[in-house]
């Protein structure tokens, strides 16, 4: 199990150190040796990090980096590596939930809190309940004198309970929930316009402000479910809805979802945490709507000049508007000057990023736009050819490129006097570019 957890700033100074196991500190110098070994071999290493897991003198270090803060978990045993990383991410989430951005200053200002959290969510290196909802009920930095006996047992039963992510007795005057379907569409296209790989990774994020312990049921146009219902119901309806359904390659759920029920009936039922959380993640690869097509044309004119022409075409309903469009066209390292002409938006050569960045605020569907650039090159005797990194694109569209639709989200709370109809529900779809690249 995890033997110790250290947090470093970018210089390699230790901000937080918590040792859980003696084995990481055997010999002279104790666990300080481990602390130093990581600083010397990883943080101060000249080379780029070649692995997130490093073994130094039979001690294994797992690290993640958030802005310029390093979190390192240390162990001498054959731990579950996936668990250690999941834990480190969770630790970051918990800290963010408590004090916002993970920065050196915030960590220093909250070091007592961090130690208290680390004492609670890792015991002898075993992760314990790390749901912020539950933690916030008793790790408050204000002492717990005021708690009554009932409150105490409520806390402990929640922390250890089956529904560790939600406390009892939540009350809202207005029962309301927000559903965000957030998708990122990923594409790798050849210069000739052939799709090399494309997939959508989506998330359903829910913000729930519901009283009591509500039972929820979530439904979407999952092909498997629709087909099943189609078989049971009228056949023509199946044909109609079949078009609208999507094939989900795989999905994963927040721990509140009853997985065995999903496995057997493919229904998504759960008691939600209070506030914002991620209900599910999914991935689709079939029938993806690619919102933009990038058509590159790069011509080398002699050894000192490059002509680039890039056309982008929007491929969705004309009534919809894409936003925050950004096309990034890489330029060679020996670029000496760039001249750009674009029909729409603004384009700039950014020497520090070795790229031409073309920004368009808004663009409706079924339109196209073009940029052309002349790139002057310094003559070099560097034998190595320019690697021609792909042209990448960023955008945001108000629909789900996978075609996912929320069909329903039903809320049942038998003990309180509100029904599904009383809950105000909001649904929003946002499609963003993930890694959206076209080779040139």
């Amino acid at each position, binding site marked *: *199990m995890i033997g110790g957890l250290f947090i470093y700033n970018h210089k390699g100074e*230790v901000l937080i150190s918590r*040792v*859980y196991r*003696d084995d990481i500190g055997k010999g002279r110098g104790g666990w*300080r040796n481990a*602390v130093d070994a990581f600083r010397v071999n990883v943080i101060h290493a000249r080379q780029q*990090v070649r692995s*997130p*897991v490093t073994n130094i*003198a*039979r001690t294994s270090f797992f*690290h*993640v980096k958030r802005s310029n803060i390093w979190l390192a978990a240390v162990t001498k045993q*054959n*731990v*579950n*590596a*996936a*668990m250690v*990383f*999941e834990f480190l*991410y969770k630790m970051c989430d918990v800290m963010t939930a408590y004090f916002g951005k993970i920065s050196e*200053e915030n960590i*220093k*200002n909250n*070091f*007592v809190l961090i*130690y*208290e959290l680390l004492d609670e969510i890792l*015991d*002898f290196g*075993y992760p*314990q*309940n790390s749901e912020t909802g539950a933690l916030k009920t*008793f790790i408050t*930095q*204000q*002492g*717990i*004198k005021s708690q009554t006996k009932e409150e*105490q047992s409520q806390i*402990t039963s929640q922390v250890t*309970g089956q529904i560790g992510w939600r406390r009892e007795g939540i009350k809202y005057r207005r029962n309301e929930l927000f559903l965000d379907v957030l998708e990122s569409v990923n594409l*790798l296209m050849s210069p000739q316009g052939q799709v*090399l*790989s494309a997939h959508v990774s989506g998330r359903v994020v829910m913000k729930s402000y519901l009283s009591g312990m509500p039972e929820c049921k979530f439904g979407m146009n999952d092909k498997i479910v629709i087909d099943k219902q189609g078989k049971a119901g009228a056949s023509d309806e199946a044909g109609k809805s079949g078009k609208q359904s999507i094939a989900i390659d*795989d999905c*994963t*759920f*927040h*721990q509140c979802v009853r*997985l065995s029920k*999903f*496995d057997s009936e493919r229904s998504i039922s759960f008691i939600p945490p209070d506030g914002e959380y991620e209900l599910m*993640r999914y991935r689709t690869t079939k029938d993806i709507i690619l919102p933009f097509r990038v058509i590159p044309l790069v011509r080398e004119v002699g050894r000192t000049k490059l002509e680039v022409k890039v056309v982008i075409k929007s491929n969705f309903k004309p009534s919809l508007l894409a936003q925050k469009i950004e096309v990034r066209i890489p330029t060679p390292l020996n670029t000496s000057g760039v001249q750009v002409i674009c029909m729409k938006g603004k384009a700039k050569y950014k020497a520090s990023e070795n790229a031409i960045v073309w920004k368009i605020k808004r663009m409706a569907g079924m339109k196209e736009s073009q940029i052309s650039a002349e790139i002057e090159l310094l003559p070099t005797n560097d034998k*190595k*050819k320019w690697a021609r*990194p792909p042209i990448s694109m960023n955008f945001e569209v108000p629909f789900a490129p996978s075609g996912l639709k929320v069909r329903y989200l039903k809320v049942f709370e038998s003990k309180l006097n509100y029904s599904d109809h009383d809950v105000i529900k909001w649904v929003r779809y946002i499609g963003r570019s993930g*890694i959206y690249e076209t080779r040139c």
Partner: protein
Amino acid sequence: ETNKLYCTSVKCCIFELKAELNSDKKEKKKEAVKKVIASMTVGKDVSALFPDVVNCMQTDNLELKKLVYLYLMNYAKSQPDMAIMAVNTFVKDCEDPNPLIRALAVRTMGCIRVDKITEYLCEPLRKCLKDEDPYVRKTAAVCVAKLHDINAQLVEDQGFLDTLKDLISDSNPMVVANAVAALSEISESHPNCNLLDLNPQSINKLLTALNECTEWGQIFILDCLANYTPRDDRESQSICERVTPRLSHANSAVVLSAVKVLMKFMEMLPKDLDYYGTLLKKLAPPLVTLLSAEPELQYVALRNINLIVQKRPEILKHEMKVFFVKYNDPIYVKLEKLDIMIRLASQANIAQVLAELKEYATEVDVDFVRKAVRAIGRCAIKVEQSAERCVSTLLDLIQTKVNYVVQEAIVVIKDIFRKYPNKYESVIATLCENLDSLDEPEARAAMIWIVGEYAERIDNADELLESFLEGFHDESTQVSETHTHTHLQHVLHKHTQNTPDSDNPDLRDRGYIYWRLLSTDPVAAKEVVLAEKPLISEETDLIEPTLLEELICHIGSLASVYHKPPNAFVEGSRGVQHKRLPARTASGESAESPDAGQSVGGVSDAPPAVIPSQGDLLGDLLNLDLAPPSASVPVVPASMQMGVDLLGGGLDSLVGLHRPSGSQYIAVGLAGGTGGMPAGLGGTPAMGGGLGDLFDLGGGVGMATGSYVPPKAVWLPAMKAKGLEISGTFARRGGGIHMDLSLTNNAMSIMTDFAIQFNRNSFGLAPAGPLQVLTPLAQNQTIDVSLPLNTNGPIMKMEPLNNLQVAVKNNIDVFYFSCQYPISLLFVEDGKMDRQVFLATWKDIPSENETQYQIKDFHLNSDAASTKLQGSNVFTVAKRTVDAQDLLYQSIKLTNGIWALAELRIQSITPNYMLALKCRAPEVSQYICQCYELLLRN
């Protein structure tokens, strides 16, 4: 404000802090403790404040209390006497009405590793284990593991293990999960006593808790489940059915642990079962989903997928695209994806793969580009139809003139030539153009090989080589390499002298080329002759099957990330136990005991416990292999048997040389030319590995290089066995262990129905087949039998360690005797450790594990000794000469995976050898030392 505190506290002196800690004001006290903790964090020694900080412990301010506890955990060990002061507060807190405080107390107390405190911990812990509040119970469960780590005996004596076992049936899922975690950890240091007592009932409980507990708890439970072996395929299927829903969990570790359970239990399902196919299909999507996790987790997932693809390629064979490298992937993700792409490459997707690889070969990162180029070569070798396209892609890359790309391309083209001889020589001209840019040994060696191999087609081959040689004459040639040089000269000189008689001019030329090469640059020659085994098989870097099986049992863990068994990086007893995949069993057969396959012939009715057993179990010291013996018995081919008869004991290693793999270069250079050499040389020593024994054989320095075989001794005198006399010895040949027996019939009647059985022994030696006495043994007749042995038998520590108790049966009676085998019998062929690993391991083994041994009056020089030892699989990793004494660093690996490292000091002045031996299992050291003497003197 705290920020300031953080910085200033470092400068703040102990004296000031002391005053503040003793302040009457609560707030001031609290701030002072905070400062102390901050100083502690940045590495300042604040242990001097111990009494003052402990004084702050009795407070009702929980925040302050927690800070003091944090301090205590850090410094209690250095101030054990003072730490006692805290006990009272702990004991009192364990009775507090607030469950959070009770838990805090028991949690902290378990972290204070001071013996005296531990004694006081027992009573509070006992109460907390039965506390009414689940939060306290779940904390107490982990505390048992903590206490066990400090004082295992105490935990057992106090009966905490039983209480912990009871908690597996607790009503609260988190208590169950923590109890499982604690028990799993404790049982790792007691591999034999089946602490977890997994049976269908307890498994059912775990599966129920699995649905209800936190994500972390699910991981503990799944990891524990993976250690269970279902009784039959039906049970296996029902567990799989209940585990599959976990594949949809958002936590990747839950998913990977579920994959581990499924991969393992799947082994038991019949392949024609519908469910088997369903399960295979269900595994692919979650594995692909792992690749959309954060990069660090992607890395862990990819390392595991690498294993899964090797074990069950069918799962992901259609998912090639998801492993395409993204431009912004971190380099560690890129390299791993590339590995998997090569493994998944097939005729169906090769076009796509090649297009991708070509793209990658123009990227920036040197390692990645090299690997991509190498991958193109591997595609050519793996998918024959693509070879031509690969070659032309490689030629394109050579045209880029990027130095490392060219060199890498030449290395792989050499491999393609090897795989498809005489097919692509048309490209040689292009390759030759790049001769000048080659500055890496491997590329140079490849090019020299190509030129040498196709010398007859290259008009100016000798010219080319000539120029090649002038370019890189290396002046700083190391002593050992000169040594190699001499040996090579020795052999090859002979070879060239032979060749003028040959009427094949090409062959003669080639000999001269090598000869020239040798006299000019021994380093390059070594590269040429002993370059790493070139790839000729389709797959490279495949993990050896038993290791792969073991790693599959460790999916998700560090072992799966390192692709090494846990004992390679975990100290002490933990993780030493090897894990194995379960065997396929049909329901119904399961009732048979795992020993069933072991009983030999008619002896099975003789109770195996007849021989009085001695000693206790070696337990965690030896690598226990508790799996039932594998059904496959290594069959000794007839030719090998014959070889033994013909050549006799001393030359047994020649037989071993028949192994198929080996450096093909030698075959090119030597086998054709010198007809007088034994044909066995063509294969070259896969077992020897080094130069030593090769040249001793090739050069005809008639030294016996075989593994040491003691002379036969009488083990069972005739008078004790109703006329049957047994003498015998042990031998290691061809990588297998043999017991060579002579059975003599001194009785008046014919003997038939022979069978043999071994008692449990230290290294699990067991007959790998029945005792083959096919014809009845007549009066006064002697028959020689060789019994192949394996090391899959049951294990029990014997005294002495190398003692073996044997039962032999014939038509007359059952007879018992015991004999001792030289421990060198167990030295395996792959026992040569990498130099770096050797160095690290040597440093890592504590010096109390070192054994010194003196071999007196011995005159062999170090090279001869090294050669002699190598014949018995004692490998010289490095040699150093200091002050007229030679130091040989040698490695030995035993059949059960124990490594022994030795430093052999040979002085030219005194005839004594000094041996220093380091081993993690010091019990075996003395036997190995004795063996050294035995091996050297024979």
